[in-house]
């Protein structure tokens, strides 16, 4: 019984990592319902921002780095690009965590803007200078906007989830 409980606990605490790897391996745009791709957003970025900010022990930087490498392999961008973008996001988030004393959702939401900006900036710089790929700027901007917009919803879901597993 104790063993079963320990396994269950391990699965629940590892769920953010599982999600991170799952979305990196299967890079589909959420929501991929029928032909609606307009509201596509980057789930990994929300996940990384939230967990590095609120529960830094849940997602290891090593996992974030590896998920980025996998993402690059799957979508065909130069190896290390997404990793560097995710790590920039993590760096900015860690800085926010260290610099702020009191966490309020609105502050976290608005500090997500510069975090996304720097993360995407690193991405754009690498793609433009280290590859010959053309860019769908509008799609990326749209994607970033909806990533920012949907953050509070996922903030609530992740907070509730963490509360639930900490109760158990």
């Amino acid at each position, binding site marked *: 019984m104790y063993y079963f409980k320990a396994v269950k606990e391990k699965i629940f605490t590892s769920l953010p990592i599982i999600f991170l790897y*799952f979305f990196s*391996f*299967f*890079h*589909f*745009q959420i929501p*991929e319902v029928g032909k609606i*791709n307009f509201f596509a957003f980057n789930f990994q970025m929300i996940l990384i921002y939230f967990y590095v900010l609120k529960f*830094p*022990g849940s997602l*290891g*930087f*090593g996992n*974030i*780095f590896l998920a*980025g*490498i*996998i993402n690059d*392999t*799957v*979508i*065909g*961008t*130069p*190896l*290390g*690009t997404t*990793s*560097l973008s995710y*790590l*920039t996001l*993590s*760096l900015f988030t*860690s*800085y926010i*965590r*260290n*610099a702020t004393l009191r966490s309020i959702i609105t502050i976290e939401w608005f500090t997500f803007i510069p975090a996304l900006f720097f993360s995407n900036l690193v991405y754009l710089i*690498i*793609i433009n200078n*280290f*590859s*010959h*790929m*053309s*860019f*769908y700027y509008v*799609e*990326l901007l749209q*994607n970033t906007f909806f990533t920012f917009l949907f953050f509070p919803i996922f903030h609530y879901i992740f907070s509730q989830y963490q509360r639930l597993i900490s109760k158990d």
Partner: protein
Amino acid sequence: MAENRDDFIIAIRYALLKKGAKQKFSLFFLIILSISIVTLDKFSLPFMTPVRSVLNDIVYHVSVVSSQPVKLRKYLAHKIEKHYNLMGENEFLKEEMEYLRAQKFNNAYLKSENDMLKSALDFSVQTGFIQDFSVAAKVILDQKSPFLKSLLINKGTKNDIKKGMTVFSKDYLVGTVIETNYLTSRVLLLTDLNSKLPIVIEGTDVNAILDGTGSKLNLKLSYLPENYTIEANKIIFTSGKDGFLTPGIPVAKSYLNNKQKILIKLLSDPDQALIVNITNGQINK
């Protein structure tokens, strides 16, 4: 002022170097590692090619497994939709069959007349698509990323697939191979921004470049002559000016959309491609 700067430096240093209880690596180390990987990948050092190839093969196969639940959902939705459309489709097919039956006799007459005229003019009979290399492959993943519109196929260097080979789906060109691994390859679709194809427009001698825009229903023609506007329902063929593809392969078609605007659409549907044919591009050699 100085205090603020010190606080900023302390916070950044703390974020970069502090590992925390559960972290195995510091951010600083991983950022340096990422920069090194990007640089090594850019300069394509000899040992990077096999490393990347093995990594690609492993990741693609795990990616295929992880995409199965979504594929199953799509398959079920498609099956249900197909079932509901069955009656209408049946009626349509009956009408089409009647029409084709009537056309069959007409075609037979035209064919015999054509052969007779050809023999009178001493034209050799062309035999359609002749390829000295052709491999069928299964599409294992179709990625919709903001950067690349590509397909992953289950054939690689093991099956003699090489970079630059052309890929067909249901006899229509869909793209070219841009990356080869031992077991898998990546196909850059004609819809991708990076795709540029020399073409010629049906019934004219107008040459242009067909550019991908990310959409299969709205491709772009560049380098058209000044004041030239394409008419609707014109087929767009490869011109063969790239020296690789032979001229005359149908690629796209102009059409009128709902807003009465002339757009260009692909003849192939990359989203529906399940089995593709890879050739060395020398068609009608």
